[in-house]
């Protein structure tokens, strides 16, 4: 395998991982858990809990 081909494969893999992670996050309903094992979106702590949530 040439260096150039290997580079393209690696870039393709990185893009694929990113896209599958996004798909795992947004293709599910809100009630379903994000899960296309072993991919992950890494969208952790992405929304701030609103004040009324923790005051209860």
């Amino acid at each position, binding site marked *: 395998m*040439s*260096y150039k081909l290997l580079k393209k494969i*690696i*870039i393709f893999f990185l893009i694929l*991982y990113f896209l599958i992670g996004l798909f795992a996050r947004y293709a599910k309903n809100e009630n379903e858990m994000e899960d296309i094992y072993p991919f992950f979106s890494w969208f952790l702590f992405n929304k701030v*809990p609103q004040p009324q949530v*923790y005051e209860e």
Partner: protein
Amino acid sequence: MRSKIHHLINFLNQYTRFPVIEKRFEEDHSFRNAKAVVPFFYYFIFFIAVLKLLELRHFPLRGNFTPRWPIFWANYVDLQIVLTIVLVFFAFASLVAAFFYYRRAGRVIAFLGIFQYHALLSSFGSPHHQMDLWLWVAFLLIFLPNIWNEKNKSLEEQKKFSLVFWSAQAFVLLTYSMSGIGKILGAITQYFNGEVHIFALNAAALHVTSQLNAMQSTTLLGPLITKYPLFGWFPLVAIIYLQFFAFLIAFRPSLHRIWALGLVFFHVGTFLAMDAEFFHAIPLLLILFFNSPFGRLNPSWRQIALDLPIFGWIFASIFKRSKKNYLFEIKDVI
């Protein structure tokens, strides 16, 4: 049709040229440093695997056991036997790789061991992401060329070795960028919904309070941030900056060490503030970046400043007025 394919190939070639980092791939010392660092990945994996053997005494069962596809065989075996097989195989496989890191077969076995363990952890309801980075880096390092013997080394093979090592770095940084992108997207959504968003002055305090309430715990920095939200605001903005631009840093070797240092502080800080533990990522940051084969131990502060996302672009435009030559061309940024 052929000309369209030709145009597509040219387009892809144009946007997959990374002159700054690829120059480092051609350097002999980059290859030697990468070759020196790789074994430590497997040494540490073995250390983790040995510690996990303690779970033979008491495995943390978090829910119903529903085997993930890599451990499909667990459907036919008693759970206790599954735990024993997976944990022992993980330790054995990582020991083989620690000893035979220079053989692709050894690296494949290590990957299989981590994969089985990772699948086991993720088979109790929600996926378990602590070992995600180790899993995928172990997968990528399988593809290192077998040029540990100096006789087999050509420039092409040397570049491929550095490229595969770099791909492991790039992958780790990509996951941080994905997290940063998620935070930015969440901020945009919450802003337009009229909600408190992550750039609000009390965002860190809200995160900390919510997390500590959910965990029913307290932390060293939690009460301080809750009482004085501004103490958490700047670190939170810094974390978003570190995460969002992390993947870009893969192409800027002068920032590898300092960015990894920032991410280590991020992990320690989130634990001390909100009891969110993700310590498994820290050794990986140390191994892959603290002695990055493509960086320099003492890069010039001007190079670092010019390479910083956003700030570097501002500095570069300021320097352009007084200097004709950059340390690098703006078009070489990506």
